[in-house]
């Protein structure tokens, strides 16, 4: 059952991505309502898909890359819906929903129904995956805010007052969103890394062995740490913060690729 809902969700997120991208270029405000409706339905089917999957396999199986990315996608939509509900920031959907779709499509590529069993660690591993993914959601939102900031900054500087200019929110709001996302994402990633180290210790007997996943995770962590400290102390905000969070998100992606390499390579 979960796979039916999963496919349905993918179709809905795809439709909503198309609508939201069209919304970027069109004046019609109704398009945002349609897109929001599709997204909300998609979120519903996604929730069902996740719960069903948990019921099928969750109790006995390790969290796979598939689950992690599907969860990431689900969280992104959740955050978007909350922000949209509170701020009516329709244009945010044009950036977050496509990202959620990419995450979900990638998840689909890694879907497998084989059960692997490493009973003793699955609890810490679940904690590790959940926390890391929540941290990733924070950085993804910061990334989106950064992209939106740079677009709006560019439009203002070049005085191109087009449809996109009208739809994007004020610069300082985007900067604020960027900061909030990192402030929330960073501690979650930190805890995710610590719990990851514990589960590594249980599985392999060492906390750290510098495989690609761990290496990139540490690099990313250090980078965001610097961004956060720079922001709070010496005013790394606005345009600079936008650039830094976009670079940081590249680190997050590399870490995720490291996870894939690990599970398909020698370390699994």
């Amino acid at each position, binding site marked *: 059952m979960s796979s039916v809902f999963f496919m349905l969700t993918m179709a809905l997120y795809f439709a909503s991505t198309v609508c939201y991208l069209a919304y970027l270029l069109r004046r019609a405000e109704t398009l945002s309502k349609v897109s929001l409706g599709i997204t909300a339905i998609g979120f519903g089917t996604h929730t069902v898909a996740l719960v069903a999957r948990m019921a099928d396999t969750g109790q006995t199986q390790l969290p796979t890359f598939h689950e992690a990315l599907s969860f990431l996608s689900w969280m992104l939509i959740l955050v978007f819906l909350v922000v949209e509900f509170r701020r009516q920031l329709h244009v945010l959907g044009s950036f977050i929903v496509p990202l959620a779709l990419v995450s979900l499509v990638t998840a689909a590529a890694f879907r497998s129904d084989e059960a692997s069993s490493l009973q003793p660690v699955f609890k810490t591993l679940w904690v590790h995956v959940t926390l890391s993914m929540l941290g990733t959601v924070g950085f993804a939102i910061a990334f989106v805010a950064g992209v939106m900031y740079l677009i709006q900054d560019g439009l*203002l500087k070049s005085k191109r007052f087009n449809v996109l*200019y009208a739809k994007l929110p*004020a*610069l*300082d709001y985007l900067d604020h969103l960027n900061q909030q996302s990192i402030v929330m994402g960073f501690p979650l990633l930190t805890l995710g890394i610590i719990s990851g180290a514990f589960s590594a210790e249980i599985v392999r007997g060492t906390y750290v062995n510098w495989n690609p996943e761990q290496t990139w995770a540490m690099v990313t962590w250090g980078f965001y740490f610097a961004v956060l400290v720079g922001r709070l102390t010496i005013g790394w905000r606005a345009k*600079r913060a936008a650039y830094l969070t976009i670079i940081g998100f590249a680190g997050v992606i590399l870490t995720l690729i490291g996870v894939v390499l690990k599970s398909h390579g020698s370390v699994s």
Partner: protein
Amino acid sequence: MHIIVVGLSHKTAPVEIREKLAVPESRLREALSRLCAYPGVREGLLLSTCNRVEVYAVVDDLESGYGRVQEFLADTHLSLSSEHLTPHLYWHAGDRAIGHLFRVASSLDSMIIGESQILGQIKDAFEVALTHKASGLLLNKVVKKAISVAKRVRTETKIAETAVSVSYAAVELAKKIFSNLNEKTVLLIGAGEMAKLAARHLIANGVRQVRITTRNFQHGLELAQRFNGTAVPFDDYKAELAGADIVLVSTGASHYLVGADDVQRAMRQRMSRPMFLIDISVPRNIDPAVRPIDDAFLFDIDDLHMRVEQNREDRLREAAKAEQMVIEEVAILGQWLQSLEVTPTIVALRARTEDIKRREVDKIMARLGHLSMEDRAAVESMASAIINKVVHGTMVTLKAEATSAGGAAYVDAARRFFNLEEMPAGFSTGPTERPGAQEGGGASNGAGRLTDTSLIPQSTKDQGRRVS
């Protein structure tokens, strides 16, 4: 009865004519009572603004009504005569008069499309007409509807959303940089008119901290008092930059007062907090080399003008949507007016049949003098029953079709079948135009056919298409 409008606006008359015709508020009451004193003028409303003078009236007869109102307008100023006035006037009746009021109220006919003042002016004019009982059943309904249409246009289109003045364009831009102006500080360097206006708009939009510096410190102090701000000595303006989120410059200086170095230094002190600089001076007072500096956003007078121009285009686009709404709303109101027309027809029909019955019963009774009281009553009730059965279907149909698109045709048919023509005419919703009138040249109906057109609204077909 007909609703008419006679008037002139910025589109048809130069200011020299408009200013003569304009009725000051103090004389509004007197003017209204003069208007309503004309025979055949049932209701009246006088709208007088700097861009238009219009008389809305409900008149018994279209042709003489137009004449009366024109006479009234010519009489408002000694140096005006009808001949002077006529080339500038427009006349509308029925649907077109109502549509005109809707368009005016929705600011579709304004010099600056989408401006909000006109709605307030209509409300005021209506208030005056109400207090002097110049406005009655029809105008009340029509004007109230016009106000609600204007509100609908305002909320459902973006016609009034964008800035159409340079000073307001500055506020609009500020809102794309700062989401909340409440905690922002404005620094006013120099005090040109436009900068003062922009500062006032910014304050109206939440800015609380205003710092003002002018070459003449005394002047600065006065301004500071007016804006509830602080005056700072002119020599210190560069030091003030770092603390200002919004910098408004408009001095008469012929050189750059704010250079790229000054802004760079300020940005460092501000730790990259964005800064919005507006240069409303010509020649410019802020060095354009400021533009590439990160997180500093400089706009000069040309940029603001460009923004206003774009907004104007946007408004025109939105105005097209609003025009559609006006057409819809006129059709809706037309239905209500039609239902007004049905009631007198039903009353007339009843009176007519009652009259026929009475006459026929009296005739027969004169010959049947021997009948007992009971038999007489039976004959009379038979007559009533026949009459009632004959017109029953007509009555029911008229009531049912009162607000339908084809309602007027039924009213007309009933009037002809039962020969009700001599009864008082109903209310016209047809777009009857004065023959040869400025904006209705093509649609002349001829004065002699006015009673006909008052019974069959010519817009019936149009309405049929819209209201199915």
